Every structure is written in C-alpha cells, then in structure tokens.
C-alpha cells in the first residue's frame, strides 16, 4: 500500500465564464475509503469529478493520484458516468459492454480470447450480473445498467473508482443494492470509492468519509465530523440545522439572510 493518499486534491479552483464553480477545494482520501461527494444540484459535484479525470480545461490547484499527477495514470481511475443514453436496439450485450472496458480503446478487430472472456465472466459475477449478461444493455433496468457500468469501470482493476450520481433515477430497492454492492467491491477489490449524490442518506451505512460541497467550497472529513450544525453553517454562510431522526440526517436551512430568500438554489436545493 502506498504511503501517499489514494487521492489528494489541493486548492482546486474552477471558474466558468467568470463565475467560480469551485473555490479553493482541498481534501485527501486515504486508500480504501468510501467517500460520498454530497451537494445540491449545481454545487459543482460533476465539475469536481471531471477535474479529477482531467476533463476540466481551466483550473488551478493540484490533483495527485497516489502522489503523482493524474494525466499519465488515468488508467488507475475507473469512471461511471451519470447515465447512458442507449438505444434499446443497440446490439451490445452487457457482456460486450464489460469487454469494452478491457480493450475498447484498442485499434483493430477484437480476437476471441479465453483470458478475456474469463475476466469478463469474473467481473460479471462480482457485480452479480450473470443473469442478464446476454441481454442488450439498452434494455436493462436502471439498477442492472448501473451494475454493468460498474463492471465496465472495474475490469481494468483501477485503484480509484469515481461515480457520478449512480443512485439518481433508481428505485429504493436498487439504491440499497447498489450501495451494498459498492461497499462490498471496495472491500474485496481494495479500491477507493468516491461517488456523488444529492442525498447522503442512502450512503450513510457505507460511507466513512464525506466531501460536502456548497457555495463552491468544500468541507471534508469523517462523516460524523462534517455533518454538524456548526460545520455546515460555516460552509453555507448562514444557519443550518442538522437533524437526526430514525437514523436519517436532515439538513435544513434555518434563518436565511434576506438576500438569499428568493434564490432558488438556496431555498430548494439543500439536501
């Protein structure tokens, strides 16, 4: 195990059209941690993930993966995008899509190989997708597609797995199943997981670290240390109540400054 953090983000700032999306965001993730990237829609979660992947053009700050820059080591990152917009007629079985995770970047025609099909079978088993491995990806349910996308991202054995809102558009049962699957994979395959979500509650059983985004700034640390009235109030810039009921956490805007009262981002989007 490396002595460096699995992921280290230092003083990251990103601006679009003169507007700050991320301001001086810093956090470290120890290897093997399961971290939720929590924030309202528009709080910069996708921007942060894209920055880590090196897709965000203009940015300042440093992002290190196990102590070295990301660019030459991008294959150590697995990435699961928000949602595939796949044609149901796309002639691509779940199995074919997972295989593309292994060699989709290569030129030339794919040659059949036992080692390859064994690797694909193993990965399909790891995400419990054997039952629908031979169906077209575009015809799978949201939860099944999510499993196949995770297998696609993990088959090259990355050290860090990034997922962009993997729980959005899933029903309650699939949400619980995907979280449990990710927790198990993180433990078994010894990978660091960073996933974004606008609601932290489904992640509470699995998540040991949190990066909470608001106003372009981030608070990070152990979940219990960050999700507190004092910390979140400081982050939002006005009073926030953190209420715990029946094992759920509610983050509620308290007294809002007058200038923000009509700002829909602040009124509606606090998770």
């Amino acid at each position, binding site marked *: 195990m490396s002595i460096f953090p699995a992921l280290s983000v230092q003083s990251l700032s990103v601006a679009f059209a003169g507007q700050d999306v991320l301001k001086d965001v810093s956090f470290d993730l120890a290897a093997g941690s399961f971290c939720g990237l929590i924030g309202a829609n528009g709080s910069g979660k996708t921007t942060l993930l894209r920055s880590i992947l090196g897709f965000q053009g203009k940015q300042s700050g440093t992002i290190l993966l196990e102590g070295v820059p990301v660019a030459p080591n991008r294959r150590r990152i697995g990435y699961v995008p928000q949602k*595939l917009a796949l044609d149901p007629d796309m*002639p691509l079985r779940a199995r074919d899509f997972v295989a593309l995770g292994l060699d*989709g970047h290569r030129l030339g025609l*794919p040659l059949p190989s036992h080692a390859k099909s064994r690797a694909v079978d193993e990965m399909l088993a790891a995400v419990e997708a054997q039952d629908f491995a031979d169906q077209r990806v575009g015809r799978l349910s949201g939860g099944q597609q999510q499993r196949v996308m995770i297998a696609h991202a993990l088959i090259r054995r990355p050290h860090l797995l990034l997922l962009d809102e993997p729980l959005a558009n899933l029903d309650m049962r699939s949400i619980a199943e995907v979280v449990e699957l990710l927790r198990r994979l993180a433990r078994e395959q010894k990978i660091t997981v960073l996933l974004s979500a606008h609601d932290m509650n489904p992640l509470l059983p699995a998540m040991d670290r949190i990066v909470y985004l608001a106003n372009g700034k981030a608070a990070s640390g152990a979940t219990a240390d960050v999700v507190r009235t004092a910390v979140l109030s400081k982050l939002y810039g006005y009073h926030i109540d953190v209420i715990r009921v029946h094992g759920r956490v509610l983050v509620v805007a308290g007294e809002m400054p007058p200038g923000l009262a009509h700002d829909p981002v602040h009124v509606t989007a606090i998770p």
Partner: protein
Amino acid sequence: MSILFASGFFADESVRTALVVGGSAAIVSALIGVFTVLRGHAFAGHALADVSSAGGSASFLLGVNPLLGFLGMAVLAAGAMEFLGNRRVRERDLVTGIVLGAGLGLSALFLYFDVTLRNTTGAAVAVMFGSMFAIPASAVPLTLAVALGGLAILGLIYRPLLLSCVDPELAEMRGINVRLIGLLHLLVLSLAVALSAMTVGAILSTALLVGPPAAALKLSARPGRAMCLAAAIGLASTALGILLAYDSFYWTPGHGWPVSFFIVTLVCLAYLLMPRGADRSRRAV
C-alpha cells in the same frame, strides 16, 4: 436452373461487373450503416448521398469515372457538415439540410448541362436511380480499392467507434480521440454512399445504408453478428435484385425493369420480415 438464371447470366460481362460493384457497395454500406443507424446519423447519410449526386452529374460533363465524382462530392459534403458544426442534434439537422439543399442545387445545374451540352439524356436517371448494367468493367479496380479502403478503416476503428457510440465521455476517458473517430466514421460513410450511388443511385443509396442494418438490429444482440448479418442481407438483396432485373428482360420482352427497384424492394422486405430477437420478451422491469 435455366428458369432461374436466364441464359447467359454469368457469362455476361455487365452482369459480372454489376455483381462486383453492387456487392462491394452493399457490404461497405451495411457495415458502416450499423454505426450510422446507432448514432442517429441516417439523415446525414442520406444527405451525403444526395449531395454526391452533384459529383456524379459533374462527372458526365467532365467525362471521368462517376465513382470519382460521387466520392469527391460526398467527402466534400461530409467535411462541410463537420466544419459547420454537428454537436447538437438540432444544429446538426439544420446544417445537414442546408448542405443537402446546396448540393442538390449544383446537381440540378450539372444535370441541366449534361442534357443541353453533352446530350446525355439518361444522365439524370443514372445518377439519381442508378444504372448498374451500364457500369463499365474499367470501373471495377477503383471500386474494389475504395471498398477495401473503407473496410480497412472500419476494422481499425471498430472498438473505439463502438465505445464512442455507447458514450462519448467514456471513450474520451479511455484516451480515445472521439472527434477523430467521428471524422473517420464520416469518411467511411462517404465512401459507402459513393459506392452505393454507383449502384442504386444517389437517391436510393440510403436504402442500402439504413435498411440492412435496421433489419439486422432487430434480430441480433451482438455487435459483430449484427454487422455480419447486415452485410449478408445487403449482399443477398443486391445479388438477387441483379438476377431479377436480368430475368425481367424476358418477362416484358425488350424492356428490362430497373435493378434499383428490385434491390430496394428486397431490402424493404428483409426489414419487414425480419423477426425480433428473443431477448425482448425477457426484458427486465
């Protein structure tokens, strides 16, 4: 046998040329067509073919191989569409429509000159709807070279193109130059429509590009198999169409029916009769 294959079918040089040129066009169109259909680029493919008719009609004026004309104009149109922007679907459709209009305008001009200056009255029908039995044997080497070139590029970019079709961001993440792959896809598409324009004509070439892949996608859930099936459907329709057109000469003595009619009808039938693949019934909820 002699009822099915009217006497002299295989001995006839124009038939052999038609089979080679038509077969090449059908295979390349069907293979690239699978990706064109998946990316929702069918309209762009049709536009490229229509615009290529300007090149085909100009070739009659200049007296060069029509394939060169079709090809040059299709590649130019593809370049124009890429240059003018094709990122958003609506924008892409608008740009495609504009390029299509300009190209067909040139076509009208060149066809007019073909008729008035060169006295080639058959040019309009040949360019728009094809005239396979009139393709000279000398066109075969160039046709084969274009077809093999298209297949080579497609074989090279097969996996990155497939991944780009699934999700461009996933492809980019894997270090794939998505824009370059898109350009190469457009180039092979241009080659395919030029070849098809030679056989079934510029207007009907969409039938070979879209029909066999659409039929294959109904049945096969695997990318490689869908492509092989599409190629087989395109090839079979073309060969059978040529045979029927040859035989039709004996149905209405003295006047054969156009090959293109048979080919596009067979493609259409293949699509309608192709059964749906089995996995639809097992669709997960």
